[in-house]
Structure formats: C-alpha cells, structure tokens
C-alpha cells in the first residue's frame, strides 16, 4: 500500500529522534523506567512466548 510521502518523512524523523534520544541517554534509569523497558513497549509477549 502506498503511504503519503509526508507520513514516510514523519516516520523517518520520528524514528531518528527516538534513536538519537536513546543514544544520548546516560542517566541511570528509575525502577519505573526499567520496568517499562523490560516490557518492551509495543512488542507482543504473547506471540513470542513459546
């Protein structure tokens, strides 16, 4: 399916910003942040079970 160019551009920028943010992060994570990261937001733990 063809996606609007603007959307592709927004995806590129959004992912780049997120990646850059992850690389810059050096501060120790809080327990809440560790828990959230552990859950691997958006992934499918149910599908990846077995």
């Amino acid at each position, binding site marked *: 399916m063809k996606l609007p160019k603007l*959307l592709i551009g927004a995806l*590129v920028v959004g*992912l780049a910003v997120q990646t850059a943010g992850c690389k810059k992060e050096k501060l120790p994570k809080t327990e809440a942040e560790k828990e959230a990261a552990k859950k691997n*937001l958006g*992934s499918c733990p149910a*599908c990846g079970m077995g």
Partner: protein
Amino acid sequence: MSDLIPSIACNLDFDILNAALPLFAESRVGGIEWAFDALYNVEEIPVWFTDLLHVYSKERRLIGHGIFFSLFQGRWTIDQQKWLDDLKQLSTTYNFDHVTEHFGFMTGRNFHNGAPLNIPYSETTLAIGRDRLARIADACRCPVGLENLAFSYTIDEVKKHGEFLARLIEPVNGFIILDLHNIYCQLHNFSVQFEDVINLYPLDRVREIHISGGSWEDSMITGRKIRRDTHDDSVPAEVFSLLAMTIKKCPNLKYIVLEQLGTGLKSSESKKGYYDDFIKMESIVKKNLIDRSQSTDQSFLPIHSLQLDTIVEDEHLYQQQLELSFILESAMSHQEARERLMASTLVNSSWKIEEWEPHMLDTAIKIAQKWKAE
C-alpha cells in the same frame, strides 16, 4: 494478481519500525497488525504512529491483535471488562478489518504480566471461550478470530487443537489465525508430520496466516532440542515451505503477516534479514494464487445474535489456573514442579497432568518464569 495482503506485525517498537521503514517506503506493506492493548502504560503515543494507524485504518487494512484479554480465564474480572470497553472505544477511532486474540489463559497475578498457556479442551472451557469471543465481537463490531497456540502439553492436544478452535469460533462465525511457526514448533516438539496436523484444522476458516522465527533450546529433562516460538529471529526456510504448501488450502485467506520482535531486530544484519523475509513472503504469496471459486464469500461477521446476558464463569477452573500458574512460576526445578502438580487439585482432572510430556512441562516452567511479574 494475488488478492492476498502481505502484512507485518507493527507496534510502537522502534526496532520493528526501523526495520520496516524500507518496506513502507517501497509501498510493499499491504496491511499492519497492531497489538492495540500493548500501549497501556504509554502516556504519549507519537503522532506519526497514530497517523500510520489511521492511514491503514482508512483503507480497512488495519487488523487488531490483542494480547492481554486472557480468553480462557475462569473468573471474569474488571480488567477484562475494561479491556472490552477500551476496544469498543478504539473501534470508534480506527476501522479494524478484524480483531483477534490469543488462545489460552494468561499466567501471572497481574493483568499485564504472564504468558498464555493451554487449557483443557472441555465443555467448560468451550463455553467460556465462546462467551468471551461473543463479547469481543460485540465490542469491536467486526470479524473476530483466534490464533492457534504454539504450546501444547501432549500430542493429543496438538491433534485436537484445530477441532476445538473450530467449535469455539462457530457461534460468532469467526475465523482462525493459522500461525505456521507455531505449527512448526509442534512438528518438532512432538515429532509429527505436517500432513498429520494441518488437515485437522478448519482451513476454510483461516483468514490470516502468521510466519515468524524462533529459537532452539535444550531440554534439561530429555536432552532433546525444543523449538520455542520466541519471535526473535528470521523465518526458517521450513516455515516458508509450510507457507507455500498452506496458502492454497485456505480458500478464505486474506492476510499473511510477518512477525518479529524488536529484540531480534537490533542489528543491521537482522534488519536486512527482516526485509529479505518480507520479500520472500511476498514472492510466495504472488506465486500461490488461491482458487476463490472454493471460497464461501465469507465475511466472518456474526450471523446470529450474540448471547451476552450471562457472563460464563467457572470458579473451580479459575482456582486451578491460579494454582498451576503459581507452581510454574515458583518451581525451582522440573522435579519440584512435577511433585507439586501431583499434590495439587489438577491431579485426576480434565487437565490430564499425568500425561504431560516432561519436556513440555519444562518449557511451560520456562515460559511462566520468563514473563512473570517481578
């Protein structure tokens, strides 16, 4: 030209999205499957992600794949009601072409932790499953389906799974996600042939196929290699072979979905492998046209009115599920798990724990302990 829709499992996971970006840019992704209930603790969802969902929704190419409903949980909970309420609300925001959930009950004492494990195939669990599917259908007002489970305790369960799925979905005129990697796991873990298993599924009810990768693990109990549906690697060649063999058997097939977790898409090599897997899947789809003359023009929308008056529950089943979850999550060894199970209320019951294969009990322990709440 094939009318099948090559799709990807696409969630708010930056590794998945980065891997899929070339596919989006090349206009190859026909549909996206979204685990809509996985964002429960995300406060801010990027606008570009919701825009992506809306674009597919507008074309009716957005499919929803729930994780946390725990379809066969014996007791009805407020979390499940909230899940339905949230789905109802989401269904006004997005046009889901269909919604699916996983087979099984979720271990763990927290609604958002745990793993789906198998349940006895009994009239009790049939009634609960049918009730829950009817409620999902009522919430989303679109076709509803169930995915086959990778995990089984026995070969008997493997062979009865397809028939049980067919009975479950019948009242809502529902459909099945046929996860071929899940079947691949069973072929290895129970030493059975594909032909002996696939024809036991209601293939005219398959609307969606999943393909994915997984991993191998050595069983400490039997020494054999166990195939795990961990979704963290590229699709094995054997699964592509199963896809080529299966497409034409499913007259009402619509979506073929490539799944891979972000944890397996960190490196540039893995992202390249993901892209190649999609191209291979796309190629197989184009080469295997379905004879639609065998199709029943199936909308998979409910035909009969949904029975929603009384919530079906079974407290005895629920207590057994809690007991099983606790044993699996806390056992320090296979031997301890077996001893505790044999002293539990599950002995001499429809759970048939006495027949569980040792290597699959071992796997259940690992699954439960991997996903339990800390």
